[in-house]
């Protein structure tokens, strides 16, 4: 790639120091508008929420070691799984890759100095934090027991828990997604460096762009829905209340109109990460770039017309069910194209098994299992048997934890040298990646069997026959915990002690690797000029 020097504006951009050397005062972090520092603000916040939500999960798994409900009361168990869901979905998974890696990398990958709206970017983090405070307040106020889905009429008419505080927290955090999405869309459209055409964008950018569109289009529907829940609970407006001619099912339609696309908010950026890693560690260009881009956009589009598959047994019309089932099967097509293209990228590649690659290959396995079991659930008749069982729990954990979290960890390990300028211990990273793969399968595979055998989700006690599988699952959760705690330790250690990584330790392609690690304040010393496509590996 060739470069051009700025002309008249050079004095404004010439910053020799990297973005971290600008100071460590609280002010320099809390008032920063640098997308790279904001990415760190998000990274720290979502890590806190992640361990918070994980603690809730661990308590549930401990309860489930024995068939009897002996550790927790049923009420506490309900509050724990609700908390786990709310925290993990809205305070970890939705912002995870976009708000951290996306925030850090998207401007760099398109060759820009920052996001289009740096102040909105900072605002989004403050909004996120405010939403988080309300959610924590809901926990202190005794927790919420509706599940993360806030289904009516229970949430509006009956539940005595802190529904309102939790709903306000989620309502607020939605605006932070909208702001992030808005910034991504505008940045991708208007901030690309000379020569960075749409056909030369890395797939990570495409994936985050598609995600941003979903954030912008789906989140406001959740906002209104939660507003209506709040009004229903406080004023009794009747929109979800049959006594006034309202309809509780209307809530489910509105909720899933957001919450199904939200699944793609979680998985699309993960697919972006995996594309970058697999290309780099097999030293091959991505197989079928155009097909990959079209698949990303198709998944984003189909995501909006499949929400009814959450409602096959809730009384929606059979014809709606058939349509939603058909569209859901359609999602499998672009997903399969992506999986096959990743596999084809590996073909005749010079594959090396560094930690990021182990995460990426784990993603392939876990996403395939999660995706294929999704096809079971898309089948109308089979869903009647599997609905609300552990099979569903296992399926979406394979996608969300196996897919989204694994890719997040992979991305973190891949770009860590760029983020910090330091390299972590490769041995420990490999150990942690393997612990994640083993732990995930051990935790969630038994849950497929449990669900198929008829164990319903959200119960704190169960018949003795399910005992072995439940114990295996809890055992897996322990291994999984190791896979999350280890990186916390060795990555923190590497911040000070890790060896210097240099600008491009993986010998990777992409604009972000052409600038020093950690990058300068405005990302590039000279505005890059792009004259070839991504993934120019030989």
């Amino acid at each position, binding site marked *: 790639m060739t470069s051009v020097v700025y002309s008249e*504006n050079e004095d*404004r*951009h010439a910053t020799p120091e990297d973005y971290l050397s600008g100071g460590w005062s609280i002010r320099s972090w809390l008032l920063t*508008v640098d997308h790279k520092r904001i990415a760190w603000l998000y990274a720290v916040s979502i890590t806190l929420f992640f361990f918070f939500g994980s603690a809730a999960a661990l308590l549930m798994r401990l309860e489930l070691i024995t068939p009897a409900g002996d550790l927790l009361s049923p009420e506490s168990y309900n509050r724990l799984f609700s908390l786990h869901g709310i925290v993990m979905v809205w305070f970890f998974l939705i912002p995870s890759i976009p708000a951290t890696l996306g925030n850090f990398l998207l401007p760099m990958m398109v060759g*820009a*100095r*920052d*996001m*289009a*709206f*740096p*102040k909105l970017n900072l605002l989004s983090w403050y909004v996120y934090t405010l939403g988080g405070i309300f959610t924590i307040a809901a926990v202190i106020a005794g927790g919420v027991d509706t599940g993360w889905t806030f289904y009516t009429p229970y949430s509006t008419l009956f539940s005595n828990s802190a529904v309102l505080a939790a709903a306000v927290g989620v309502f607020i955090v939605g605006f932070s997604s*909208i702001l992030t*999405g*808005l910034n991504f*869309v*505008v940045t991708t*459209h*208007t*901030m690309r460096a000379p020569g960075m055409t749409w056909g030369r964008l890395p797939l990570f950018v495409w994936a985050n762009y598609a995600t941003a569109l979903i954030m*912008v*289009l*789906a*989140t*406001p*529907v959740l*906002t*209104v*829905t939660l507003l*209506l829940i709040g*009004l229903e609970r406080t*004023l009794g*407006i*009747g*929109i979800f209340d*049959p*006594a*006034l*001619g*309202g*309809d509780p099912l*209307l809530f489910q339609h*509105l909720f899933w*109109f957001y919450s199904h696309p939200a699944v793609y908010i979680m998985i699309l950026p993960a697919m972006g990460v995996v594309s970058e890693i697999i290309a780099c560690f097999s030293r091959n260009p991505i197989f079928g770039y155009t097909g990959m881009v079209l698949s990303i956009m198709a998944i984003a589009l189909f995501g909006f017309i499949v929400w009814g598959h959450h409602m096959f047994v809730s009384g929606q019309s059979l014809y709606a069910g058939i349509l939603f089932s058909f569209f859901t099967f359609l999602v499998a097509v672009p997903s399969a194209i992506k999986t096959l293209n990743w596999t084809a990228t590996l073909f005749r590649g010079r594959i090396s098994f560094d930690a990021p690659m182990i995460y990426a290959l784990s993603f392939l396995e876990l996403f395939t299992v999660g995706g294929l079991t999704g096809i079971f659930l898309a089948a109308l008749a089979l869903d009647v048997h599997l609905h609300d069982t552990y099979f569903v729990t296992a399926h979406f954990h394979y996608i969300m934890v196996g897919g989204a979290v694994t890719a997040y960890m992979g991305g973190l390990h891949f770009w860590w040298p760029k983020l910090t300028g330091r390299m972590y211990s490769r041995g420990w990273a490999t150990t942690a990646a393997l612990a994640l793969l083993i732990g995930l399968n051990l935790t969630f595979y038994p849950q497929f069997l449990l669900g198929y055998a008829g164990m319903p989700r959200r119960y704190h006690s169960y018949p003795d026959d399910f005992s072995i599988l439940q114990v295996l699952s809890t055992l897996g959760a322990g291994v999984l915990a190791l896979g999350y705690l280890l990186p916390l330790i060795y990555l923190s250690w590497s911040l000070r002690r890790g060896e210097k990584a240099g600008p491009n330790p993986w010998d990777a392609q992409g604009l972000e690797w052409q600038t020093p690690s950690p990058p300068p304040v*405005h990302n590039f010393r000279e*505005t890059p000029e792009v004259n070839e496509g991504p993934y120019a590996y030989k």
Partner: protein
Amino acid sequence: MPTSNSGRSGESRPEVQFDDMEQQRHAGLLGMWVFLLTELLLFGAIFASFAILRVRHGAVFAEAAGHLDLSLAAVNTALLLSSGLTMALAELSAGARLRRATIGWLQATMALGALFLAIKGFEWYSEFRHQLMPVLGLPFHYSSALAAPGEQPVAAVAELFFNLYFIATGLHAVHMLVGLGILAVMLALARRWRRPDRIDRQLRIAGLYWAFIDVVWIFIFTCFYLLRA
């Protein structure tokens, strides 16, 4: 953030992340379009809910709509559409660098918007007086000539209609207030008239938002007022 706008020549320099003013202008406009997409889905969820319930309770909703003041709403529609025109003229004036015309058209737009809100407030007040405001535990009395078509009493379904009406018009009024706030800032900037190119650019972004509020009102007017018995 250290924006390096120098006012000497009256022309702005772009913010640090942009290469030139054209890029900054494009990003600002696109940002507002994307934001309006969000707003569209926000109101869309309410209109979709209304449509479903309107179909389900056709007769009761149609009769309840008859209790709304169509003539006041028609006046309001005329006011808001006129404000769309004055706003467009304000944008054109700023584009032509005409300070006094910009200020004048902005003031006209704000006056029309404020009048709209005043009439809307009066309408709400008269609904409150007729005990048609079922919020905050206020009394709701509704008598109907209809026989209950479904399981619910007619008055209960009418209450649902009025609740939806207050949510939709209330949310619209909040947007009007935000719009008036934006216009107030733009008016202050136009009075000072430093960097007219920036005023021109920002006014076009504000104009998009104002036009959107207009469009939403037209849908509210149609759904709630015109679909009557």
